[in-house]
């Protein structure tokens, strides 16, 4: 079976690298919110394909009593290093991580502690020393995702041509998934409106 998976992956890579891929671009509107940023737009899955996380670790910073970034999409299997950049102690814990609750303790400035997100889903990230701090790690099965800017703009680049389900996630608002047909070249426009 391994050689079949390998063949599929190889075909996929050839497919993408040969230019048979397009971009999904659009705008999200978050109703009753200060802005339309921090919406994660992502392709839920690509049939028959399992994606590996990017090599190396990703970093979520704790700087000036804030998690940076506030919303952090990663591919399932990604290890995230939590860095403390403040001259105060910080903690990282998650009460709802799909991999199970965790608490990494506290650590000093310049030091990182790591956690690997092996299951898809949303992990709320909190600091039990500073209750106002929160962030979200969104573990998804594909590398085809984007986070909207404050104006709601987003772009997912190099998506292989095909039919997909495009989903969105926001910490307070929701929208229904959209079916999207990505052309071999060019852009496919998909907009969302998120409501309560």
């Amino acid at each position: 079976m391994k050689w079949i998976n390998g063949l599929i992956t190889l075909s996929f890579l050839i497919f993408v690298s040969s230019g048979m891929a397009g971009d999904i671009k659009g705008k999200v509107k978050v109703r009753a919110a200060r802005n339309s940023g921090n919406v994660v737009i992502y392709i839920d899955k690509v049939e028959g394909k399992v994606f590996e996380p990017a090599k190396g670790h990703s970093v979520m910073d704790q700087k000036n009593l804030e998690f940076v970034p506030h919303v952090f999409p990663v591919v399932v299997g990604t290890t995230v290093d939590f860095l403390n950049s403040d001259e105060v102690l910080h903690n990282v814990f998650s009460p709802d991580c799909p991999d199970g609750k965790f608490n990494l303790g506290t650590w000093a400035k310049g030091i990182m502690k790591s956690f690997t997100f092996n299951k898809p889903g949303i992990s709320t990230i909190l600091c039990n020393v500073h209750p106002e701090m929160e962030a979200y790690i969104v573990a998804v099965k594909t590398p085809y995702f984007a986070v909207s800017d404050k104006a709601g703009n987003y772009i997912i680049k190099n998506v292989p041509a095909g039919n997909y389900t495009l989903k969105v996630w926001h910490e307070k608002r929701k929208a229904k998934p959209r079916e999207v047909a990505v052309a071999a070249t060019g852009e496919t426009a998909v907009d969302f409106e998120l409501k309560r």
Partner: protein
Amino acid sequence: MKKLFLVLFTAATMGVLLWEVQSVQAFPVFARKYKTSCSTCHYAFPKLNAFGKAFKNNGFRYPAGTDEEMRKEEPVSLGSEAYKKVFPDAIWPTDIPGTPPLAFRAIGRFLKFDKNTEDGKSSFEMPHELALLFAGTFDDHISYHGEIEFEHAAEIGYDFKVQYDFSPAAHLAFGTVGLNHMMAEDLRLTANHYNIVNLRNQSGTWRIRSGAAGGIELWGAGNGPGGRGGFTYAAGVGNGQRDGENYDKNKSKDFYGRVTYKIGGLGEIGGTEGQGSSTSAFYIDNSFRIGGFAYSGTAVAYAGDDDFSVIGGDIDWWFNRLNVVAAAMQMKSTYAGFERKSFTYFSEANYVLYPWLIAYARYEFTDKNTDDNIDAQTTILPAIVAMVRANVKCSLEYKIPLDSAGKNTGGLIFQVDFGL
């Protein structure tokens, strides 16, 4: 030279206008300034946690010179930084908060007495207190805090202190000073005051709660080895007893001092060196602090001067969810030809059941005259404290006198306390 000039100028121009008032150490102003929760600094307000003490010891600033980057509220400049180069041919530049550094505190109580009093068997004392709090910093070296307090219908108190912060190890404060600002009294979770701050001299003209009134205080703090624990010190002189105009009522000044040393836990002036831990919470700071204090003063009374002094010590032990505080004090008071010695102590335990729910118990012992045969006053005070929100605290306590003379003087207090 410029710094010295500024210090002298500050000392000469800052007013010291003070009335006896219960000092408050909870300032929602800072929650707004840094956009952070009350629990960043408070175990349960007004009781400070380890970081809150470090913040205070830095002159109400974030540790290690990081205050400017931690501040979320943009100040209004009253002169650009470059004007420091022009001094003394220009006013030294500074800044003020972008929004007024004001906050409010309100306290309401329901009281149920063990015995009928003039007010009856129970009472809704609402409001018990309304207070306007202010606190903040000017540029890198000046900080201030104070309050205007309305308690009951006719009592108004006010309190103000400004200090020049040379460094965390040296602050020179002008304003309302005294031991009460640095002891557990300021940090208590209960409506009932501690016995040691309520013990009066023979003439009844002074107690620790009275403070030293207007005066000057040099104080500071530093971290211990490895950035953990450390020391604090304070030495001050004040009017002591004062009249309605806030002038000294007698020729002599009151003097006081306090020293503490903390072993383990967060450094007294903060920082993160050596502070990693597998567990953490804003209410945890495994450490042991020991301290000593002394006060000497003179008060004018009906039968002449009352020369009094106190000396005492205290401990503050934190272990995971448990915090134990104890203090003992001896008072001497010479008045109308009589010398009286008093001895008093208390011990209390705080246990965090949940981050918002604290079980509390206190034992108090007060022997007003150690040379007579009258029984000492002893009391136990169980309580439960609930932080229903980060800025709203409810507490239920029951004072139970154990000595025969104190029988029927106990009672229950339910208190709601919130800051905005």
